[in-house]
C-alpha cells in the first residue's frame, strides 16, 4: 500500500476510496490520485462505499455529498464509526459554494472538502496537508500509548511500595490505640511516617517524619529509618544517639537534596518531663491538661535530618516539664499549609486555637474537624499528618501488635563481658550493647526491660561512686539533680585511669534459668556492711536504686570490698 506522497516522503496511508456516482468526475479524481502515487478504490454509491471501507480499510476517503442511495453525510458518519480510533481523513466532494459546503462538511465529521471539478494543484495541496496532519496524529498516538504504559507501570510500582511500607514499617509500632494519628496522603503513597516504640525504661518514643518527595522516593528512606528507630530505641540508646544514627543513615542513603524533616518525642513513665527534638517541622505543641492553654511550643531547632554531615554544635533535644493530663501534638507542614478553595492557608494560629478550645479528651477530633471545615474539599496538595499524644500512664507498657511471641527459655549456657577503660567510658554507653546481646541470645522483651533497669543502676553506681567518687545523696535532692550531673560531667572528663567490666551469663541454677549480671570497677571500693546496715534501717535515702534492684533479683551480693557486684535474675 505504499506510495510516494506529494512531499516526496514515503506514505503508509493506504489506498484512497473515491465515492462518486458521476463516472466522469470519479474517473478524473482517480487518475489524479494514481498520479500522486495512491492506490485507488472506487464506489458508486453510499452502500457500496461503506461495504468497501469495511473490507479494505482505506486510509483516505473522497466522498461526494450527493449520492443516489444514502445521504453523503450519513455515509460519512458510518465510515467514521467503522474507522474507530484510526485517523482516516475524509474529504467531501461538492459542487456547492465554498462557505456553505465547508461548514456543513466539518459539522458532519469531514476534515476538508474539494469543490468539483477538482484541480490538480488544489488536490496536491490538500494531500500535503493531510499527510502532515496524519504524521502528527500518529506521533501523538504513539506517545500516548507509551505514556499510558509508563503510567500503568508507575501505578503498579507505587502499589507495591505501599504494601511493603505498611507491612515492614508501621507494623512494629507500639500499640497505638491511645496515640491518635491522622495520616492522609496526597496520592497513592504517603511521604510522611509515624513511628512509636517503647523504651527499655518503660517509656515511649514517638517520631513523626516528612520525607521530601512522594511515592517510591519516600519509601526508600522509610525502611532503614524504621529499622534503626525500633532497634535503637528498643535497646535503650539515648535520643541524641538515635538521631545521630538516623541523620547519618539518611544522609548516606538519600541523594543530595532529599531529606526528612522530623520531630521526636520521648516520654518517661513517670510523666515528669518530655524530651523533644524538632528539625524542620512545624512547632511541637504542648497543651496544659489543667488550663487547656499552650504550656509550650517547640519550634524547629535544626535543619532536617539527612542534610548535614553532623549535627550543629550546641543543638540538643529539649527537656521540658510536663504533667499527667497534658497533651502533645505533632504535625507535618501539610496541616499548617493546607489551603481552602480560595488559597488561604490553615496556619499555626487556627491549629493552636483548635488545640486549646477543644475539651481535653477531644483534641484530635476538634483539630481534624477544624481542618476539614477549613479546606472544604479543596484539593490536597501535600501529605497531611497529625499525632496527638495524651500524656497518661496508660500510654506505657503496651507491646507492639506484631510483637514477639514467647520463645522457649534459653537452655544453652553462655557468658559475655565488656571492659571499658577511661576513654571508652567517656564515649561509649555499654547498656544498649548489653541489651542488644540479650536480645540476640533470645531473652524476651518482658525480661529485657527489668534487666535493663538492673544494669543501668549497677553501672551508674560503679561509674559514679566506684570510679568517680561522687556522693549519690546529692542526686536525690530536689535542686541537687542539675548540680550532680554537672559534677559528673567534670569528673568523667577528668578521669585518667580506671575501668569497668560488665558481664552477663546465662546458666541453669537449681532448676531455674538465671541471668547472672556482674559489674566490676577498679575504684577504691566502699564499706559494704556499713551501707547495708544503713539502708536496711531505711535511714539512707540514696540506697533506693539498689533496693529496687534487690526486689527484682533473686540475689544481690557485693564482693571484693564493694568493687564487684553480682546480681542473679530468674527468667
Amino acid at each position, binding site marked *: 500500500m505504499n506510495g510516494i506522497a506529494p512531499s516526496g516522503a514515503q506514505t503508509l496511508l493506504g489506498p484512497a476510496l473515491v465515492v462518486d456516482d458521476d463516472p466522469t468526475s470519479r474517473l478524473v479524481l482517480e487518475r489524479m490520485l494514481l498520479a500522486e502515487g495512491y492506490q485507488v478504490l472506487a464506489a458508486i454509491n453510499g452502500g457500496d462505499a461503506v461495504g468497501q471501507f469495511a473490507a479494505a480499510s482505506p486510509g483516505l476517503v473522497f466522498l461526494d455529498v450527493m449520492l443516489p442511495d444514502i445521504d453523503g453525510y450519513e455515509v460519512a458518519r458510518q465510515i467514521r464509526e467503522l474507522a474507530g480510533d484510526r485517523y482516516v481523513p475524509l474529504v467531501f466532494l461538492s459542487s456547492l459554494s465554498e462557505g456553505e459546503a465547508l461548514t456543513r462538511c466539518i459539522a458532519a465529521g469531514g476534515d476538508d472538502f474539494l469543490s468539483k471539478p477538482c484541480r490538480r494543484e488544489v488536490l496536491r495541496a490538500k494531500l500535503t496537508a493531510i499527510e502532515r496532519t496524519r504524521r502528527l496524529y500518529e506521533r501523538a498516538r504513539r506517545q500516548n500509548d507509551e505514556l499510558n504504559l509508563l503510567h500503568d507501570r508507575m501505578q503498579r510500582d507505587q502499589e507495591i511500595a505501599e504494601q511493603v511500607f505498611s507491612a515492614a514499617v508501621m507494623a512494629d509500632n507500639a500499640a497505638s490505640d491511645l496515640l491518635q494519628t491522622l495520616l492522609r496522603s496526597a496520592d497513592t503513597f504517603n511521604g510522611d511516617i509515624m513511628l512509636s516504640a517503647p523504651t527499655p525504661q518503660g517509656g515511649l518514643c514517638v517520631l513523626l517524619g516528612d520525607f521530601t518527595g512522594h511515592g517510591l522516593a519516600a519509601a526508600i528512606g522509610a525502611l532503614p529509618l524504621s529499622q534503626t528507630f525500633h532497634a535503637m530505641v528498643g535497646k535503650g540508646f539515648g535520643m541524641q544517639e538515635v538521631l545521630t544514627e538516623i541523620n547519618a543513615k539518611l544522609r548516606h542513603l538519600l541523594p543530595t537534596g532529599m*531529606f526528612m524533616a522530623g520531630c521526636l518525642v520521648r516520654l518517661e513513665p513517670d510523666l515528669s518531663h518530655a524530651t523533644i527534638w524538632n528539625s524542620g517541622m512545624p512547632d511541637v505543641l504542648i497543651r496544659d491538661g489543667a488550663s487547656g492553654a499552650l504550656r509550650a511550643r517547640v519550634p524547629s531547632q535544626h*535543619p*532536617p535530618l539527612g542534610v548535614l554531615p553532623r549535627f550543629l554544635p550546641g543543638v540538643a533535644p529539649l527537656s521540658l516539664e510536663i504533667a499527667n493530663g497534658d497533651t502533645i501534638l505533632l504535625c507535618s507542614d501539610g496541616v499548617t499549609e493546607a489551603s481552602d478553595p480560595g488559597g488561604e492557608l490553615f496556619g499555626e494560629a487556627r491549629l493552636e486555637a483548635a488545640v486549646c478550645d477543644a475539651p481535653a479528651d477531644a483534641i484530635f477530633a476538634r483539630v481534624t474537624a477544624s481542618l476539614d471545615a477549613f479546606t472544604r474539599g479543596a484539593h490536597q496538595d501535600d501529605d497531611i499528618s497529625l499525632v496527638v499524644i495524651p500524656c497518661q500512664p496508660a500510654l506505657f507498657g503496651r507491646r507492639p501488635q506484631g510483637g514477639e511471641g514467647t520463645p522457649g527459655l534459653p537452655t544453652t549456657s553462655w557468658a559475655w563481658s565488656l571492659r571499658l577503660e577511661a576513654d571508652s567510658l567517656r564515649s561509649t554507653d555499654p547498656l544498649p550493647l548489653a541489651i542488644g546481646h540479650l536480645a540476640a541470645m533470645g531473652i524476651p522483651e518482658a525480661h529485657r526491660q527489668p534487666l535493663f533497669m538492673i544494669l543501668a543502676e549497677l553501672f551508674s553506681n560503679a561509674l559514679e561512686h566506684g570510679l568517680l567518687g561522687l556522693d549519690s545523696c546529692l542526686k536525690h535532692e530536689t535542686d541537687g539533680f542539675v548540680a550532680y550531673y554537672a559534677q559528673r560531667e567534670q569528673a568523667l572528663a577528668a578521669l585518667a585511669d580506671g575501668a569497668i567490666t560488665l558481664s552477663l551469663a546465662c546458666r541453669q541454677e537449681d532448676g531455674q534459668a538465671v541471668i547472672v549480671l556482674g559489674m566490676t570497677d577498679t575504684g577504691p571500693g566502699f564499706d559494704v556492711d556499713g551501707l547495708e546496715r544503713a539502708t536496711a534501717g531505711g535511714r539512707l535515702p540514696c540506697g533506693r536504686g539498689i533496693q529496687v534492684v534487690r526486689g527484682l533479683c533473686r540475689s544481690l551480693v557485693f564482693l571484693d570490698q564493694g568493687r564487684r557486684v553480682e546480681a542473679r535474675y530468674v527468667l
Partner: protein
Amino acid sequence: MPLQVSPLGDSGSRIQISGRFDFALHRDFREAYRNQAQSGHVFRVNLAQAQYMDSSALGMLLLLKEHADTLRGKVVIEAPPLAIRRILEVASFDKVFSIEA
C-alpha cells in the same frame, strides 16, 4: 521568565527566581550552575520575585551548595519574601546558607 541567570563581576552570578520555586524549575535551575567551574565562584539566588517555595526547592538549594562546595565557592540567598523566609527558618537553612535581606 521563571528563572534568569546573570553574571556578577568576574567571580559571581545571580540566579533570579520569579513565581513558584518548585520542582518544575528543577532542570533550568541545575543548568544555571552546572557548567560553572570557576574556583571560589559566588552564586547568589535572588528570591525577591518568588512567591512560593516548597521542599523540593530546598533540595535544589542543597544541590547548588554541593556544587559550590566542590568549587570552594559560596551560595547566598538574597531577598527572600517573608513567607519564604519563614520556610527557610523552619528548615534552619539560615544555619546552612548565608541569607541576605
